[in-house]
């Protein structure tokens, strides 16, 4: 099972509505993934500022103290925004170094994302309650990806919830399961990728990070993944300026897309798209197997 929703706005006038529209889509996918949920929202960029999102069990980490230590480590000021059990660190310092420092020095926390645009939030339990608690509908931005999870490959934990992000401003959500993730994780670790879970999807996210670092475009990396990743999957990938969709070669997992002049949207099922404005006049289609679809702002 699992449910995926994705919304990429073409019309900037809809940006204040992004969170609200995404929350309504996510609500339709609760039955497909009742054990945990998460979402990535792209937006609220400020020139030169890197954002690092992290989550920890309530009260386990004193975020303001962590921010002070982090500031010393990256040699730059670190601001902090706390939302429930999440923290968003904001700094002009090196975002990747900050991410690595947090993983190494704050073991109670899970580092969710790093980049100028991306913010990731996750929780365990009813997806609607998670979205409400983390105030998804209040968030604005250019695009968002959400996931409701029915766990198959690893435990139901916050860290095991999607989206997974290992590279700057990139995240991946997954419906399906991978069968060669253990071997691939070892190989990617040798290439320098850092893993925080035993989850198969984190391996797919790290694979994309590795490939893009090696010079592949997102499209090339996804095309290569068709040979390197074994299993069944529908992936939705977010980047700073766009998003991509890929289904495995036999299109095992469901997917439907819709597009209007104002937005492009992905849903595991049509009902996730049914709440969008203008859906009645949208072009609706099912993505082909083994075909990479990419939209970007550029």
């Amino acid at each position: 099972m699992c449910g995926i929703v994705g919304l990429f706005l073409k019309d900037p006038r809809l940006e204040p509505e992004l969170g609200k529209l995404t929350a309504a889509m996510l609500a339709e996918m609760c039955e497909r993934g009742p054990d945990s949920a998460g979402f990535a929202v792209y937006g609220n960029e400020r020139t030169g500022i890197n954002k690092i999102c992290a989550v920890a069990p309530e009260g386990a980490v004193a975020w303001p103290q962590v921010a002070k230590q982090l500031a010393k480590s990256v040699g730059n000021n670190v601001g902090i925004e706390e939302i429930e059990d999440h923290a968003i660190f904001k700094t002009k310092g090196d975002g990747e170094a900050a991410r690595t420092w947090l993983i190494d020095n704050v073991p109670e926390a899970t580092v969710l994302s790093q980049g100028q645009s991306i913010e990731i939030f996750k929780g365990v339990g009813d997806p609607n309650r998670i979205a409400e608690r983390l105030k998804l509908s209040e968030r604005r931005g250019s695009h968002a990806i959400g996931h409701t999870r029915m766990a198959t490959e690893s435990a139901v934990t916050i860290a095991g919830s999607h989206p997974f992000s290992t590279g700057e401003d990139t995240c991946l959500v997954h419906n399906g399961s991978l069968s060669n993730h253990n071997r691939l994780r070892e190989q990617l670790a040798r290439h320098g990728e850092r893993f925080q879970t035993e989850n198969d999807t984190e391996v797919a996210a790290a694979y994309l990070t590795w490939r893009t670092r090696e010079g592949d475009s997102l499209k090339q990396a996804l095309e290569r993944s068709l040979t390197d990743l074994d299993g069944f999957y529908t992936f939705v990938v977010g980047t700073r300026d766009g998003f991509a969709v890929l289904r495995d070669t036999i299109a095992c997992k469901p997917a439907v897309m819709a597009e209007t002049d104002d937005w492009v949207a992905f849903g595991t099922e049509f009902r996730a798209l049914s709440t969008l404005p203008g859906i009645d006049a949208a072009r609706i289609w099912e993505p082909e197997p083994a075909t990479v679809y990419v939209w970007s702002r550029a």
Partner: protein
Amino acid sequence: MARKAPSIRSARPGLQRNSVLDLARMTVREVNQLLHDADGGDFLIKNPRGAHAIAAGLDGRFNIAIDGHVGYYCAGMTKEASITINGNAGTGVAENMMSGRVHVKGDVSQSAGATGCGGLLIVDGNASARCGISLRGLDIVVKGSVGHMSAFMAQAGILVVLGDAGDALGDSIYEARLYVRGRPKSLGSDCVPKSMGDTHKAELRKLLDAAGLGGEVDVSEFSRYGSARKLYNFHIDNLESY
């Protein structure tokens, strides 16, 4: 379409005996229960919004129109009824249908008409993967193209495709007959091209007419595919194919 009041054997209290059923105001369970309690009638179902199992398990002389896109298993297991979907349908539309007619005006997702036993399924748009999987007597006419693995292990019935077919058409097929006007990307194990005799042309003509295609489509443009009958029983030479 003229809409007379449906005859209802045992309508549940609180439900209107009305021929318009609005899913914005009723649950799918309420709509289906009302239909199951009736033995037939004309109904218009509004605001389906991708909900699952709409009008599933109907048994009787129904004439149902659904205005909008439906989710999974719409019109599944249906008997005698005539159901028209003015929109797209999700996975497994008309799965295991027994008789009657299901007409989808848009596209359909995977496994359309899966394991269908009888009746006619018409798709005006395209069907995605595994259309007519394990077909057991239902006839399917797809006016667009079908995806990969269509008619997989199809036992009886007919699949007509006016467009193209995806990879592995008719893999491990039994006695279902496939007519494709365009090109199959590839044929599955034990599925082979077959000659078009007069009886085949006649049965294809009949189905095209039933699908409302009248004289506009020429049966001689179609190719027939079916089973080479080499996988029916275990044969040591076929070990690689199992």
